[in-house]
């Protein structure tokens, strides 16, 4: 996982000594993915570009707060992009919990366990097909449960319970893999 740890190093270089080259490298990797995610979420091209700009400004300003023992670089960047999406595209306030107190022993280890998309896909493939289908829409297409219900022509309640069961099974697979 050389590539992944390189992204973490870039993010730390930005946080520790405002390294512009490392910042540009992060942009090159994540910006097209963030824009892709925004387009899937239904943002316009202009909104998606705006979210990318705002996300990277926040990365530049907040990188010193990134703690690799608590989150992967991609997760940390994902949460910033999501918050900018709520702010700029949905135009809503997003209440957030305050930063957690000291992590419980072992908790950070569990979270730091790397989870990449190949592994996620593999775990999804182990689920009952109906549950896997719903979760694929959630995680790869970024659809809301209402959108998934409409797409599959199923009641919202069915999508909710498949999501619930699927997430439970997915977690069980992740803990054993």
């Amino acid at each position, binding site marked *: 996982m050389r590539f992944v740890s390189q992204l973490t190093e870039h993010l730390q270089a930005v946080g520790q000594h405002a390294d512009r080259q490392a910042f*540009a490298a992060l942009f090159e990797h994540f*910006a*097209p*993915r963030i*824009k*892709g*995610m925004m*387009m*899937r979420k239904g943002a316009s091209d202009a909104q*998606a*570009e705006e979210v*990318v*700009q705002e996300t*990277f*400004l926040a990365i*530049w*300003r907040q990188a010193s707060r990134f703690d690799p023992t608590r*989150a*992967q670089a*991609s*997760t940390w*960047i*994902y*949460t910033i*992009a*999501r918050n900018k*999406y*709520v702010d700029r595209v*949905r135009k*809503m*306030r*997003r*209440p*957030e*919990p*305050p930063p*957690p107190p000291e992590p*419980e022993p072992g*908790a950070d280890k*569990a*979270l730091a366990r790397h*989870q*990449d*998309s190949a*592994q*996620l896909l593999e775990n999804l493939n182990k689920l009952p097909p109906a549950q896997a289908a719903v979760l694929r829409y*959630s*995680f*790869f297409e*970024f659809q*809301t*449960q209402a959108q998934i219900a409409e797409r599959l022509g199923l009641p919202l309640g069915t999508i*909710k319970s498949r*999501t*619930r069961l699927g*997430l*439970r099974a*997915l*977690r069980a697979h*992740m803990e054993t893999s």
Partner: protein
Amino acid sequence: MRTAHLLSEELLLAYAAGQSSEAMSLLAAAHLSLNPQAREVVARLEQTLAAGMESAPVASLAKDALPMLLARLDEAPETAVVVPRPALKTGFEIPEPLWPYLQNRDWKSVVPGRVKQVELGVRIGQTPLALVSMRPGFRVPTHSHHGAEFNLVLTGGFSDLDQDFLPGDVSERGPEHEHDMRVHEDGPCVVLVARDGPLIPRSATAHLASWLTGF
């Protein structure tokens, strides 16, 4: 360890994905502030969503996107608005996400001496979220709902359908559930209530009698 009552995972997923309404995000944020298990579930969901983002079909950026960004790096950031702790008297630490919604708001008596509440400046449909404070031993009469009801315990505890709910727990009841709530005897209980529509008491008389007597 006692199993915490968490908000159901599809709602935590909607929160982690940035898809919840402001009211449901507030409920989730207050829940996470008090409940490390819920926080861990959301952290894992965010990790999974980030894995999805990694594999998202890439979209090419405008040609000047990076130069434009680099030119903005030295801009002074907007100063963040600091929301003070609300003046509301509670006798417990109000979770921080609730602070902006409780500015200049105060308790109103619902059942004198037994129940009081303060409405927050955010609604689900027509129904505002509210903090409801109930005295020890108070019983909410048997009722159901038009929609879903969520009660997040902020302090104290209550029993509902033979389950105990303590600080950080959420009870989630759908329109199909008829239930009552009994506050534990060892102290008052304050819950954050998010409700999709008004309560439906089982009988008008029972409703009136129980709210007047508290039992």
